[in-house]
């Protein structure tokens, strides 16, 4: 079936099998491989993207059902020669990853966590970031990165 996806401000028309998830459409068809596939069963958070600003799991969304939304992935956060998003910069500065596989999902989830108003303390960040697992256990540094980026995102 034909679907029209709006990803990072660009419209893409593509023919997909009805079973195709948004995650597979992004990775396999649009070659936006920044979004990662971990468990493919809604448990790890590696596939987190923003849909109309809300963080969601792209492995549990059918591509056909994602057509009316604005989708944001890690590739859209900073332009080719533009500065990094404050959350990307904070992950670099705080060394908030080892292998990096969970990182795109962590960064998108962290941006939403700040925007939702759920990043007011280390405890609250841990609770509201608990849907993003990290096999390398970079958790303390991820919390530090969210705390670094929060005031910059809020423009204070």
């Amino acid at each position, binding site marked *: *079936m034909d679907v029209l996806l709006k990803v990072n401000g660009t419209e893409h028309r593509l023919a997909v099998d009805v079973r195709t998830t948004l995650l597979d459409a992004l990775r396999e068809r649009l070659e936006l491989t920044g979004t990662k596939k971990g468990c493919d069963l*809604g448990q790890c958070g590696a596939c987190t993207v923003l849909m109309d600003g809300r963080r969601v799991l792209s492995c549990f969304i059918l591509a056909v059902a994602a057509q009316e939304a604005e989708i944001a992935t890690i590739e859209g956060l900073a332009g080719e020669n533009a500065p990094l998003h404050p959350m990307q910069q904070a992950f670099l500065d705080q060394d908030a990853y080892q292998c990096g596989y969970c990182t795109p999902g962590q960064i998108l989830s962290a941006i939403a966590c700040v925007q939702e108003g759920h990043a007011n303390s280390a405890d609250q960040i841990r609770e509201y970031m608990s849907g993003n697992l990290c096999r390398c256990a970079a958790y303390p540094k991820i919390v530090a990165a969210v705390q670094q980026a929060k005031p910059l995102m809020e423009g204070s």
Partner: protein
Amino acid sequence: MRPFSYQHPRSTMAALALAAQHVARPGEARRPAPARYLAGGTNLLDLMKIGVDHPATLIDIAALRQEHGRIEADESGLSLGALVRMAEAAEHPAVLRDYPAIAQSLQLAASQQLRNMATLGGNVLQRTRCNYFRDPSWPACNKRMPGSGCAAMQGVNRRLAVLGVSEHCIAHYPGDFANVLAAFGAELDLLAPDGTARRIPFEELHRLPGGTPHIETNLQPGELITGFRVPAGPWTRRSLYLKIRDRDSYDFAQASAVVGLDLQDGVVREARIGLGGLVAKPWRAHAAEAALNGQRLDRAVAEAAAAAAFQDAVTHGENAFKPELGRRTLVRALLQAAAMEA
């Protein structure tokens, strides 16, 4: 995943008309291909990916948010549309203030990503996390294949139920929110494919496994949940949801307790008690309520109520620890609720 036809009706009437095409009419020999409503998809797509559910048609009801996506509160109670997302209800000011147990049951469930997708209607219908149900390579599961036996009885079952189980199935109902609806005496609004509306007590939605664990609810074929109505009472404000998990966050309950109290000068005028994590269906503990009503709530009374709640518990090997965990969870929740400022 097997292929399916994908429909996305724009209105409730259109969704019901599609559902009607998949419901058997009296005297019709051919069994119509099974259809399912797709809400947030966080349980349905999961089960389709792991090969446990294979609907021939998905009726995507996301657009029904227009009609059934509202939260409304007044003096007499709280109305929640079936398409309200978990995250929306968890953070609604009236829910947080007047129904804290509902807000907590949702905040402590799943992850923020899942709560942003999952709906309240889908949440109450989520299916058991029993390992043998979720893995079709196991030949024995009466819920997945009626009459095949139950691999969990002598297997890995520390997550499974001790209340409401039968000799055919000991699966747990894994959700949180539904236990609060049961305890608070909520009602459920339904629409049948022919347009017939009915309102039933939420406690009548789910069935005990008995000899037919594959029949989980009393919904008619194609019936759509449109919303929930929670009556307000003094116990809704002084209420809490205590959830005990293997890990601190992002996990299903091993045991949980809903407590709502109408308390006057330390004496319980009316109590509402629910249990989760170890129950076969969303659970209201009527015996525990009876043990509390009219009593001055201290530790001894709380322990007596907890004992009453678990007097019929049945354990199987690994899950033998659960009645004690459940009793302690309920005692702690009762004493916390008694100490609340409400």
